[in-house]
């Protein structure tokens, strides 16, 4: 069970290929092939079903879905990656603090537990709603990571606290290695694998959270993300009017990205940890 076995696993390779393929498609398409800014309304005829001219159809707000979907997916992905990066860093720092600190550990633990119980949705909605004229997509990712770090740091602490009792950590402690070096040399190789899985889970969480917040209408509504696309589909009654392409195509793209990503996470978990 190692890295070599993992890259021979067919499921892993196929899922990774799908993820990389979709990421490449949305970055290349959204930077080279879009003629009209998809956030502008009424630049195309309204509500046309998929045809050879408009492969994914157009919305009732006059946007071309073939342009809209890659940009929306890209924005959701940017939010997910920003959240995952910042939350992972916060989680690692906090978990390391709890593990090597001698005083104030219980207070910190209580703080982390409390942050787990606080419902993130309302606070995030208020923050994003009130600041929505000023924020960009990476900043939304930063705002989401206010809550994103709580769960990963909790699981990380439980891993680290069992790791702390291992003999080799005691050896390096007794040999006089400074605490930060213990964290870097002894803990890091272990937790990197867990963090890789945690990173993917955080990305999925952030994308889901963004979709939920947008469906409440608290996002920057003119910026295309998967959530805002669904929100406008909901507001324009696309379900009752039978404009299936408006909501189905973004959702299918989202699932096509999220499912393989999750599978990659599972495979990493299976082989490396």
């Amino acid at each position, binding site marked *: 069970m190692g890295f070599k076995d993992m890259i021979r696993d067919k499921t892993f390779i196929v899922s990774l290929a799908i993820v990389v393929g979709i990421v490449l498609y949305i970055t290349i398409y959204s930077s080279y092939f879009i003629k009209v800014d998809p956030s502008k309304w009424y630049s195309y005829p309204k509500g046309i079903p998929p045809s050879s001219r408009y492969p994914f159809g157009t919305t009732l707000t006059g946007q071309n879905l073939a342009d809209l979907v890659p940009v929306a997916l890209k924005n959701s992905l940017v939010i997910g990656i920003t959240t995952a990066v910042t939350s992972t860093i916060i989680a690692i720092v906090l978990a390391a603090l709890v593990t090597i600190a001698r005083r104030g550990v219980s207070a910190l633990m209580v703080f982390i537990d*409390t942050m787990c119980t*606080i419902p993130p949705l309302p*606070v995030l*909605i208020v923050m994003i709603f009130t600041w929505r004229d000023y924020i960009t997509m990476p900043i939304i990712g930063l705002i989401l990571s206010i809550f994103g770090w709580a769960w990963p740091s909790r699981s990380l602490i439980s891993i680290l606290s069992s790791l702390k009792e291992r003999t080799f950590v005691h050896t390096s402690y007794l040999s006089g290695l400074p605490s930060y070096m213990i964290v870097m040399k002894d803990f890091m190789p272990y937790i990197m694998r867990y963090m890789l899985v945690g990173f993917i889970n955080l990305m999925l969480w952030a994308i889901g*959270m963004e979709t939920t917040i947008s469906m409440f209408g608290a996002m920057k509504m003119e910026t295309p993300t998967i*959530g805002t696309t669904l929100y406008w589909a909901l507001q324009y009654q696309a379900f*009752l009017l039978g404009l299936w392409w408006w909501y189905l195509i973004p*959702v299918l793209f*989202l699932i096509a990205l999220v499912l393989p*990503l999750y599978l990659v996470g599972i495979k990493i978990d299976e082989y490396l940890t």
Partner: protein
Amino acid sequence: MVLTIWLGLTLVFIVSRLMPFNPADILLSRMLALGTTMRPEEIEAMRRTIYSLFGLGEPIYIQYLKFLYHYLIGDMGPSFSYFPTRVSEIIATALPYTIFLLLLSSVVSWIIGNIVGVLAVLSKREKLGKAIEYVALAVQPIPFAVFSLAYLIFYVLILRLPIPTGGILQGKPFWYMIKDMFQRSLPPLTALIIWNWMGNFLSMKNLAVKMKNEDFIEYAKLRGAPQRAIVQYVTRNAIVPQFTYLLLGLGMMFTGNALVEYLFSYPGIGILFFTSIVNADYNLMLGITYMSIVGVAIAAFLLDLIYPLIDPRIRYPGQ
């Protein structure tokens, strides 16, 4: 519980002071935009009244202490969209519904997930267990928002079932209220349960697989203990960490809860939140944020009371 509420309050305070604009000014400009004719002195007097109502124009720590005091006694100022009804009154009608739905959905899906999880590991039909696991794994990463929308379309357009609406509950007997709440919560409840049991199922399955290889289970098998006893041993030992996760996960559950309430127009916090966003009602929003933290804290507290039953090693002082 107290700590959660205090931390939540501090968060709400920080969020409210970080707003890029002043909600008091917005309220004032809205009242003026209604076309009321007032003399300048009156406008100035009103501005001062509203500022004192919001506690602005004082040093930040006094604002903080006042804010804590007002929120703790439930005085969250007037709502903008329902002016001059107080925020606390509006939320008080919605909060019981939300706590009811949150508790019911989380507990029911927790029970179902745990039972199915244990049975999937210990039963003879391994293929069925594997199949359920694969389905759960495949569905798990899809955002709940997408699933709830799909469920709404399925429920309304394909099954053509009605979404129940309610009458006035004031003055009705208690059991009638509970029955009405249950009836109204049925569509969102089913959506939540269908989704949430899978997470519990997967974590229970992981725990049970580990537990199955423990020595005492091996011994029980060799001793010839009946299947039922083995199931009981595994469940009893795996249920404690599962319960901790149920408690800590309530905050996360709330997200799905609010969304489903809004989609199925269930009269809880979620739909109120949507109204406050549409009307840019900042006071109501802050009040809802605070009260949803309180609601989750109350739900966690209620579940916490059962903890000693689940884990007999826990004793509270005085026992």
